[in-house]
């Protein structure tokens, strides 16, 4: 706290979302009674500040600033109940004090970032780079750093992204420096013990300033570079301070990140700052409040100024003494454990509290902190295992709180983005139902289709895809559009996923992917490709890869393959890059091939028949994929299924034989011998029938028109003795009754002209040099052994019985 010559200005350095800071700050305010408040925050936010005291406003909420013409450029400033800024803001509004946000305007920061991106690049290159960066942002988290729109940085407390990125030396987190110097594992635990978990008052801010001054000097000494954005921001804040002083307030309280305290108190001539700030570019921005979550406040979400455990901080904010704090925290953990069905008695809690205290003593800590409590729970309650802790982690450590904002708050950016798209694509939201026929070869229609698919992924059912009605044409899509007023609720809900339609859809899809099973993943993949979510597709491919590697269910893989191959084959129509999907297919086929035998053996008839469909489509898919290596592997796997010893049911064996036969992957003689084997007298009639019907397939048409197949069956049939024939007759009847009546008639007709059919190509292939004379020689002898009396015509004619 520094005395200024004429007026008093006190600078309170805080940690964003630090409950200890918040408590000390309020105590300081009560003592000192400031008459004006300056907060490190975006000046754009001042217009919606009054909502902060609205009854309907429940933190966590975020101040959301976004570029008007490009809603995906957005900066979130989250506040929790225990954030010092939030407490300060409420204090000021309650006491009718003027509040000013004094950080560099977001409008300027967006513009500066644009300059950086476009500087010295041809337009194409810069665009792609920007897209990439923005998408990186979107994949990182729904939140962005409170003081920096460049998300993805990990600085914990003083979170200047630029500092992190260009760090010349280990300067990622000044608290880590101090923490390590004090012998702690990280700055986080040091700060928690020194500041947040203590209950002390005003001296705190002096101590913080001293610490930060030391670190900043150290950085200077080690030659760490100062970054332009940081200099600009601090210059801007200083000039705001000067302005406030001119306005004549007597006691001005400044609440800012601890890191900036020395800079704000430094004596810098006004003209230097003004020179620095002169002529800065600006972009148009809009501002509103958005509901926020504890998950979004957690550092794990990628939020730069995030904290390890919002729920623990809330507990610290509400809790009283050090001892009661530990016990009540452990008690709430116990409740969660019990909800998960784990034993957790009061005795457990007592022992956990004792262990946590002993641990704290062993580590020279004044009281048990979050790490000690968690370790105690794991050791005493969870039998040392990490898993039960994981089950309650989200609720215990992160917390599940979801904020609420008053109805009067301005619209969320996603809504704006959808409205903008509706305008540019000339798709008016109408309550009347109407049908839309899209020709995907036209650019606008393609865009419309993408928009509708994206909204579908976000559960905003404005349009219903009527593809099933419109046939399977790849160039046309039929949609039924109907806008119902309630859909606005879905839009607002979806707003949590992102500020533009494409971002939100991508994030939502990835989130669902993290919980989906394989077939659902393939479906999502299809949806993501239809919606053209480039980045999400990459994520889905990775998820598919992981899931495919882990699944023990070959059947799932089988079911997933056709969808993926379809994506590879037809994705091109929509101009999507399917190279990664192809790689995925290439990785999946060997897995299926290895597991196929296991998956198929030991199944009963019913499950085997269920497997037949997926097998057939997977076979088809692999053939379509057209990779020789994959086909070879797959056919090898199918071949393994053929013999009865494979343990596969006759249905599967017959199907495998047929699939291989269709592909000419199995020599004709081999197929014939498989058939003879399967239908030989020793086989169970039931299984022989299954084999044959699955070999012939559902329709007789192929049998009718495929000469080699016909020849094969014909040859087997004619080779049967009378008794054998009579024996297999019921089985044959059963197989053939599955065909329709006209099909059976056609079969009979073809069979009756069988002698002439013998001259057909396949037959000649089978018997390339048919020497009647020589063939006739052994006939009497054969007839003798086989006890046959009829002639060959009669035998062939039997085919008609079927």
């Amino acid at each position, binding site marked *: 706290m520094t005395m200024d010559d004429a007026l008093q200005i006190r600078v309170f350095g805080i940690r964003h979302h630090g409950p200890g800071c918040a408590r000390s700050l309020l105590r300081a305010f009560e003592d000192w009674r400031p008459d004006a408040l300056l907060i490190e925050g975006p000046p754009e936010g001042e217009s919606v500040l009054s909502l902060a005291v609205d009854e309907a406003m429940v933190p966590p909420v975020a101040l959301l600033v976004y570029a008007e013409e490009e809603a995906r450029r957005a900066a979130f400033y989250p506040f929790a109940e225990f954030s010092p800024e939030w407490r300060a803001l409420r204090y000021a509004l309650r006491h009718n004090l003027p509040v000013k946000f004094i950080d560099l305007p977001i409008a300027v920061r967006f513009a500066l970032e644009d300059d950086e991106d476009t500087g010295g690049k041809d337009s194409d290159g810069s665009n792609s780079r920007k897209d990439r960066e923005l998408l990186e942002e979107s994949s990182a988290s729904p939140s962005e750093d409170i003081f920096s729109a460049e998300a993805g940085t990990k600085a914990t407390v003083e979170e200047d992204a630029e500092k992190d990125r260009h760090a010349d030396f280990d300067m990622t987190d000044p608290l880590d420096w101090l923490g390590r110097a004090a012998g702690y594992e990280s700055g986080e635990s040091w700060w928690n013990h020194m500041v947040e978990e203590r209950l002390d008052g005003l001296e705190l801010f002096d101590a913080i300033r001293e610490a930060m001054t030391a670190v900043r000097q150290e950085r200077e000494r080690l030659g760490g570079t100062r970054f332009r954005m940081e200099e600009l921001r601090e210059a801007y804040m200083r000039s705001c301070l000067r302005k406030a002083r001119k306005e004549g307030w007597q006691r001005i309280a400044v609440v800012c990140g601890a890191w900036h305290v020395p800079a704000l108190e430094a004596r810098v001539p006004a003209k230097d700052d003004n020179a620095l700030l002169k002529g800065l570019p600006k972009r148009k921005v809009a501002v509103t409040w958005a509901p926020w979550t504890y998950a979004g406040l957690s550092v794990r979400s990628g939020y730069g100024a995030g904290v390890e455990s919002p729920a623990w901080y809330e507990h610290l904010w509400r809790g009283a003494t050090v001892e009661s704090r530990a016990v009540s925290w452990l008690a709430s953990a116990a409740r969660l454990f019990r909800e998960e069905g784990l*034993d957790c*008695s009061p*005795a*457990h809690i007592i*022992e956990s509290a*004792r*262990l946590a205290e*002993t*641990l704290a*003593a*062993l*580590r020279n800590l004044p009281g048990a902190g979050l*790490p000690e409590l968690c*370790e*105690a729970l794991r*050791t*005493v309650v*969870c*039998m*040392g*295992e*990490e898993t039960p802790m994981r089950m309650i982690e989200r609720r215990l450590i992160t917390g599940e709180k979801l904020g609420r904002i008053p109805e009067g708050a301005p619209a969320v950016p996603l809504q704006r983005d959808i409205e903008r798209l509706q305008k540019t694509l000339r798709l008016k939201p109408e309550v009347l139902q109407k049908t839309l026929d899209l020709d995907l070869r036209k650019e606008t229609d393609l865009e419309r289709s993408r928009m509708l698919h994206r909204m579908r992924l976000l559960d905003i059912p404005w349009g219903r895809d009527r593809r099933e009605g419109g046939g399977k044409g790849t160039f046309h899509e039929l949609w039924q559009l109907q806008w119902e007023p309630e859909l606005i609720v879905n839009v607002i809900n979806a707003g949590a996923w992102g500020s533009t339609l494409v971002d939100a859809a991508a994030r939502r899809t990835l989130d669902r992917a993290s919980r989906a099973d394989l077939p659902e993943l393939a479906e999502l993949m299809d949806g993501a490709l239809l919606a053209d979510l480039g980045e999400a597709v990459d994520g889905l491919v990775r998820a598919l*890869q*992981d899931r495919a*590697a*882990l699944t*023990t269910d070959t059947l799932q893989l089988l079911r997933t393959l056709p969808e993926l191959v379809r994506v590879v084959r037809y994705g091109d129509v929509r101009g999507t890059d399917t190279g990664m999907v192809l790689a995925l297919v290439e*990785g999946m086929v*060997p*897995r299926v091939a*290895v*597991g196929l035998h*296991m998956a198929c053996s030991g199944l009963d008839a019913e499950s085997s028949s269920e497997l037949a469909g997926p097998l057939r489509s997977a076979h088809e898919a692999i053939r379509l994929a057209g990779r020789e290596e994959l086909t070879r592997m797959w056919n090898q796997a199918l071949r393994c299924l053929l013999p009865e010893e494979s343990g596969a049911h006759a249905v599967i064996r017959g199907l495998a034989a047929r699939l291989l036969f269709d592909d000419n992957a199995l020599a004709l003689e081999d197929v014939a011998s498989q058939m003879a084997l399967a239908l030989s007298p020793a086989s169970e009639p039931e299984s022989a029938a299954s084999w044959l019907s699955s070999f012939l397939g559902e329709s007789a048409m192929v049998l009718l028109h495929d000469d080699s197949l016909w020849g094969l069956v014909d040859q087997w049939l004619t080779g049967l003795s009378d008794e054998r024939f009579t024996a297999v007759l019921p089985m044959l009847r059963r197989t053939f009754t599955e065909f329709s009546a006209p099909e059976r008639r056609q079969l009979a007709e073809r069979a009756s002209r069988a002698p002439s059919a013998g001259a057909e190509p396949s037959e000649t292939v089978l018997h390339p040099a048919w020497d009647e004379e020589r063939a006739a020689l052994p006939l009497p002898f054969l007839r003798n052994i086989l006890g046959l009396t009829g002639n060959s015509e009669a035998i062939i004619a039997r085919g008609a019985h079927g």
Partner: protein
Amino acid sequence: MNTADIKERTSVLRQHAEQQFAEELDALKMVDARPRPANWQLSPWAVCIYLMGGNLENGFKVTPKYIGNRRLMEIAVATLATDRALLLYGVPGTAKSWVSEHLAAAISGDSTLIIQGTAGTSEEQMRYGWNYAELLAKGPSRQALVQSPLMRAMAEGRIARVEELTRIPADVQDSLITILSEKSLPIPELNEEVQAVRGFNVIATANNRDKGVNELSSALKRRFNTVVLPVPATEEEEVRIVEKRVRDMGRSLELPAEPPAHAEVLRVVRIFRELRNGKTEDGKLKVKTPSGTLSTAEAISVINSGMALAAHFGDGILSAADVAASLVGAVVKDPVQDRVIWHEYLETVMKERSGWKDLYRACRDVE
């Protein structure tokens, strides 16, 4: 300590921890000014230093006994200080007994009060037995009583160790319950009891992957704080442990083979880690995990038997073929499921890896 003592100690095959590291324990005792729980030889802080290693103020260097997470050791020591019993849990080869021995040595200066748990461990071994000659001659008396290590630990206020707790039959296990909660051991025959002196505690070890163990009753479970000792965190750490142990064991087995090439150890450790962790070391590909534990100890035995093969049937230099035979055996424990997993790993991971062709072929040849 006289010279005969020293001579005797250097000739024993294996020294107790408190003998081997007597110098370190003494040095720690000298600088340790922090409060000690009753009957502890060192303060909890000094016990942690002894386990994890470190430099003392007077320049003395304490070697690390446990290589791994310091926080786990802190939890273990804090547990013993709260008078709750400690259960060290983990897959084989994660240094459970090693840690238990050193904890007992550092806290009580005595790591020999040990009960080895087996399927045949009886209640007499846990509590007390009788010297029957004495019993018949003079009737029941303290002289006729044969104390178990546990009983001695209670009487002297020291740490007792129970190895492989889960191998002990359930009814015998439960005799620990009274000891742990009442801290006393009644002797009804003499109408007496032994009350535990301060400083008494129990460190038990158990194997969490062993099949067919006697699961602890929940009453007993509640009397233990459990610390799970994990498998080594990084590949380098594990390679270091395997190489060191293989070298030591090779010396004691007097194998004429060369010490194994670093590259071969690295490959075995990597295969073990990848299968155990369910993903490749570069984190790019997931793999399925077989049913076996694939612990560091097993990696050591794979290398060892490979070395034996190389020494007695090969040219003395460990090659891919020598490793392959025992490698497949170590991975494929379940002939059906594990084989599929192993094949998948062979085809999707090993086959693609450059420089691994020889091992890939050798593994295929084993089949």
